């Protein structure tokens, strides 16, 4: 799958970011809505077909008339399979009716930003028990806030603003979660009170 500079019908590079995000970017993945819906539904269909098969490996009912483990999952998964099949059939046989009223023809995702945020949360989750809540949260907020302030302010001012906001944020969260709610956050240097 080519993302940048692709001449594919399905994946194309766009030069501008939607809304008023003014900076031009080549990190925006733009996809036609209908094929994306159909591919997603196809993947859901395959996944649920496997789950439906799995229901036959579940424990059988102990007594006659007793619904058993597989009864409701089979209903729920079977229903999902039927709906997914209807969406696929409609998309293939009646593409004119497949798009929802008022739906835009393309969807855009700033994939680099999306993956960066996901990776940052992943790193946060890994570091939280090791480094402690205070430093991990401080770093997390700083990494996210500075580039957002830079849009309007200089780098130094952005860093100062971010630090000024992040420190009270860490303290407020510590106050609410650790002190008020008594949740056991992995703390590095802030005092831990035992209730």
């Amino acid at each position, binding site marked *: 799958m080519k993302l940048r500079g692709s001449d594919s019908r399905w994946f194309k590079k766009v030069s501008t970011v*939607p*809304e*008023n*995000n*003014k*900076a031009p970017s080549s990190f925006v993945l733009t996809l036609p*809505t209908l094929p994306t*819906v159909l591919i*997603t*539904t196809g993947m859901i269909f395959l996944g*649920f077909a496997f*789950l439906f098969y799995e*229901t036959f490996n*579940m*424990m059988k*009912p*102990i007594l006659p*008339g007793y*619904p*058993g*483990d*597989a*009864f*409701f*999952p089979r209903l*729920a998964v079977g229903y*999902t399979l039927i*709906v*997914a099949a209807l*969406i696929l059939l409609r998309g293939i046989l009646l593409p*004119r*009716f497949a798009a*929802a*009223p*008022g*739906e835009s023809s393309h*969807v855009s*995702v*700033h994939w680099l930003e*999306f993956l960066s*945020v*996901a990776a940052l*949360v992943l790193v*946060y*989750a890994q570091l*939280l028990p090791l480094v402690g809540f205070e430093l991990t949260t401080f770093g*997390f*907020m700083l990494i996210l*806030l500075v580039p*957002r*302030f830079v*849009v309007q302010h200089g780098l130094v001012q952005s860093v100062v603003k971010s630090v000024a906001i992040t420190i009270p*944020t860490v303290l407020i*969260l510590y106050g609410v*979660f650790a002190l*008020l*709610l008594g*949740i*056991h*956050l992995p703390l590095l240097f802030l005092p831990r009170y035992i209730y």
Partner: protein
Amino acid sequence: MDFFFNNIGGALDALSSVNLLLIMFAGVSIGVVLGALPGFGSSQSLALLFPLSFVMTVDQSILFFLAVYSAVEYGSSIPAILIRTPGSGASAVTVLDGYAMARQGLAKKALRISLYSAVIGGTTSTLIFIVAGTSLGHAALLFGPSELFAIGVFGLAIVGSFFGKDPLRGFLATGIGLSMATIGSSGFGGVRFTFDQSFLIDGIPLVVVIIAFLAGPEAFRLLVDNRRTVEDKSKVFDATTSDEKNKISGSLVRKLIPTWLRGSIFGTAVGIIPGAGASVGALLAYSEEKRWSKHPEKFGTGIPEGVAAPEVANNAVVAGTLVPTLTLAIPGSGGAAILLGVLVSKGVVPGPNLFRDEGTFVMTVFMGLFVINAFILITGLLGTRLFSLVARVPLRVLGPFVMLLIITGSYAIGNYTAHIMMVLVLGAIGYLFEKIDIPVVPIVLAFIMGPIIEKNISRALTISGGVLEEVFLRPIPIVILLLSLATFIYSLLTMLRARKFESDTEQGNDRP
């Protein structure tokens, strides 16, 4: 009326607790602030705050979340009036006349009308809720497990058809939610869809699903789509002008009374219909008000009725949505789903038996809504200046805070980093689903309703000894199930008709 008189004493006793009053006041204050944040609706706000319910009793948590829910609906009108950005979809209609009033130097007047309308809508619908809820609750006591199963299916059919632009995608979302609810221990001695993963044995925690699907996509949207958004500050209006033309006169109040009454009725009625929600209520009230008006051409130019109608309706929806939530365990909206989730997580089983077994609790909720509306009035009158500042928070700066709250909240569920991962994965899926118009609210609604539906169908089958005809072919269940099928087919036909009309119009426009 027996229900009322038998439980009013206990309810008033519960509400006289200073702790409970402080919790409701805190809920209102937090709710108005969250509502005033542009683009932040009731579902997202309640989902973010869900972890707070861990340390509260059932009375405290339900009243806290009701306070937040009601206050968010009011708070969302603040950015709609001041910066032309509705706090939630429900206040989108308020922009039309609210912002127009602000441009004429009447921002404070518009905010006051919005506040009074919110309180009147909330109070009136609570009165209707007391009558409708108790009557429906008692009628529903006649229902057995087969009927309750059929009602659950009907609820899902309505939820699937209402959310999103395409009913089929809504139905797909309900299927995904129902299937997710079956993961983990079955209650029949086995486990389902765990694939030997120990963290799945207890299933996916409700709070993870709520935070991930309701707050997660919003966090991703703020961080990814609004990372460089710079709002135009020149359009922010001053809400503190205290001149003569910003005063609410007695004649204006008299003029608005019919609007408030009509809006309250529309809002409550829409709230009772599962899936319709505050946005539909506000839109319906606005369009009806325009139809009833002697000067419909003035709507959209900045008239008080244009602010009062949607605001009274979207607040009336809150009490209306509680009727199916508490009596039938069918949540009418994302916010109601979270309220239902709070109840379920506290071991309270919503449904008709709730009125019989937990009468005092139900009455405390009824009476608590009056107190909450009084707090909204006080908070609104005192905090206009502060809340108008909140409305100016840039969207791009809001994102990191929302994501941090989500992470901390999901970690707080048992101090387990696996929950952060679950929220991350499901939240990312929710964000991508919303991009292609697969609605995420039905996933949450179905996830909450799934175990209730399963319990009822299992009970009905056990009672009947596995004879399906006895479960499904009884008069009430078969009528309700046929209604569900009709809802399914009707929503598909309506969508096809709308699409055909759109397609024909496009072709007509393309012709030279």
